């Protein structure tokens, strides 16, 4: 009795085994081993910064010919590894971080009304542009914080601040801001115009203590090409390296600030003689 059972089961097992083995050979799908290799070196954040639906999708795309340098959170290290697997040339990349172009916190910027509604910047923006008197300023309700997968944004006194050491440069926060004041900048830059206001000087003065009033001292008193004026707003050209803290020193409203982090280049303080000479030259 027992023997029959054992033999029957063994026979079924043998047949099933042969069947499965044959199916594995016949229906085999070729997967490029590089996909798995690339997936292994990608950080698995699935943040979407590369434009693909997650790391796995990007790995497939790279093997099919996509640019191997798109992983922002992984940074240069990951991109080198991916390029290595693909045998592509390694492109040197600068670390990019997000930066909030506003310094008007609850202490420095005035509010025009008590906002009493949904705690979300996009919702607040629908109510007359939000409660900040400045229509360009950070609303501080943290829509960017929600968008960030890396806990790289904190709200301090009604103002969003991005922590460069946590920021992977995935850009998720950029479209989340209804005021459009989060920009991607090279992490090595330390001199910033922390204002986005296109209002005229007297208006800015009335509503914010750290707003750019468009006095142009940073561009006229200190000849440089790194800062330029867009109407009444000084704007830093981040494609150029700006290492002098002179613009910050000359700014009357403190809207040009030197913010040093572990990634920033060293700051040079030009000698006053040079400034004087430059001024004389101009005169």
């Amino acid at each position: 009795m027992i023997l029959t059972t054992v033999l029957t089961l063994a026979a079924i097992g043998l047949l099933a085994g042969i069947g499965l083995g044959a199916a594995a050979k016949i229906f085999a799908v070729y997967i490029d081993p590089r996909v798995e290799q690339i997936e292994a070196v990608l950080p698995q954040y699935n943040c979407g910064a590369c434009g693909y639906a997650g790391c796995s999708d990007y790995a497939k795309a790279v093997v099919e010919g996509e640019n191997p340098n798109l992983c922002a959170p992984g940074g240069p290290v990951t991109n080198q590894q991916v390029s290595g697997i693909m045998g592509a040339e390694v492109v040197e990349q600068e670390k990019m971080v997000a930066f909030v172009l506003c310094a008007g916190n609850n202490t420095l910027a005035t509010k025009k009304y008590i906002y009493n509604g949904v705690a979300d910047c996009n919702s607040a923006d629908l109510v007359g542009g939000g409660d900040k008197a400045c229509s360009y300023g950070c609303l501080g309700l943290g829509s960017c914080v929600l968008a960030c997968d890396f806990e790289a944004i904190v709200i301090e006194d009604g103002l969003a601040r991005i922590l460069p050491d946590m920021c992977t440069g995935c850009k998720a926060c950029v479209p989340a801001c209804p005021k459009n004041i989060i920009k991607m900048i090279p992490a090595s830059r330390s001199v910033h115009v922390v204002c986005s206001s296109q209002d005229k000087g007297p208006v800015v003065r009335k509503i914010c203590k750290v707003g750019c009033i468009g006095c142009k001292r940073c561009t006229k008193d200190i000849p440089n090409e790194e800062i330029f004026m867009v109407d009444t707003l000084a704007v830093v050209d981040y494609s150029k390296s700006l290492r002098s803290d002179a613009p910050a020193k000359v700014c009357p409203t403190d809207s040009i600030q030197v913010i040093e982090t572990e990634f920033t280049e060293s700051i040079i303080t030009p000698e006053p003689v040079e400034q004087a000479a430059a001024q004389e030259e101009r005169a």
Partner: protein
Amino acid sequence: MKAAFDFHGGIHPAYNKETTAGLPAEELPLQEKYIVPLSQSLGAAGNPVVERGTEVLKGQLLAEPGGFVSVPIHAPTSGKVSKIDNFPHPSGRMMTALEITADGEDRWIDGCGPLRDFENMKPDAIKKAIWDAGIVGMGGAAFPTHVKLSPPKEKPIDTLIINGAECEPYLTADHRIMVEHAEEVISGARLMAKVIGVERIIVGIERNKPDAIDKMLSLADGIEVEALHVVYPQGSEKQLIYALLGRSVPTGGLPMDVGVLVQNVGTAMAAYNACAFGYPLIERIITVTGSGIAQPKNLKVRVGTLVSDIVQYCGGLSRNTMKAVMGGPMMGIGQHTLDVPVMKGTSGMVFLTAGEVTLFRSDPCIRCAACVEACPMGLLPTVISSYSVNSMFDTAQEYHAMDCIECGCCSYSCPSHIPLVQNIRRAKAEILSKQKKAS
């Protein structure tokens, strides 16, 4: 009068109309300054045709329409254009406006004045007069009237509804217009009916205005006057059409899709003044009310009058005034400064005191469906709101977020005080910006 249909949902807020319902509209004395915004209606803003320093006469053109869906803007009094700059706008933002410093003479420009033979005007001439006068819907939405009077040929209109429901709590401006200017309203309605070639005119009035109903009935020769149930939002176009005719405007459609045109009583009066006298729309009746204001009044004010001047005329604000709302308390816009001007679409100012304003505090949804019961559009406000909160705007659109009329019935009835309308408005804004990007 036959029994009116009942639309689904709606609410019965405290109406608080008795304060001003019996007060005749007073004329606000001439002010020193007027701020006339270039953007006062839906559609494109006007393009100014005057410069800083230009001397203008009352009724003179200040800005040309910026397109077909746009209206001209006229000087509220004679004087000088003293500034063209950004001024606080009732929308809460800063917007371009003209500051007119009055010369005190209040001199009309030539061409406005004696009564004309308006009864024999051709339809096209009436429509042109209405556009030239800068008339917009005066119930609040401020949609250019001449656009509404230009329906496409394939959508024939058979009925003109004159909206005298005035369902917003507190407001009595339309009520006073019907009592004091009934002849003008009816003549204006006949003029507009002539433009679109319809015979049937119905005036819809809520039952809480018996004197207005009587007055309109006594003058309505061949015009139907219907008494409507007192329920908010009875004065909303789609609800009013259903209540009077039993016709439902299809989703995403306009009243013209069911052969109806709706105009506010104030718009009808403005149309009459434009055709009979050539007067541009520079004056309107508003209600200044609420427990925060010393002397509530109905006022005839120029477009461009600062709210601060009106408050001063009405005896000032009490110290515990917490909120100033332009328009009614249900759909009006809260103001952060009193330096905003009255616009063509401003129906009133409501000043609320501390006890009447509650601060936002919301609890989770308890699935009671009070908002679903209240929604006059038959939507599921709680569902749309949840999708909006979770940034699922496509799904919100599938649940017909775009059909929301933002009447506020859902937020009003929610026992958990969820800001449903704000969430749905967010969804609508996101859907619109996505559609804009796609096109």
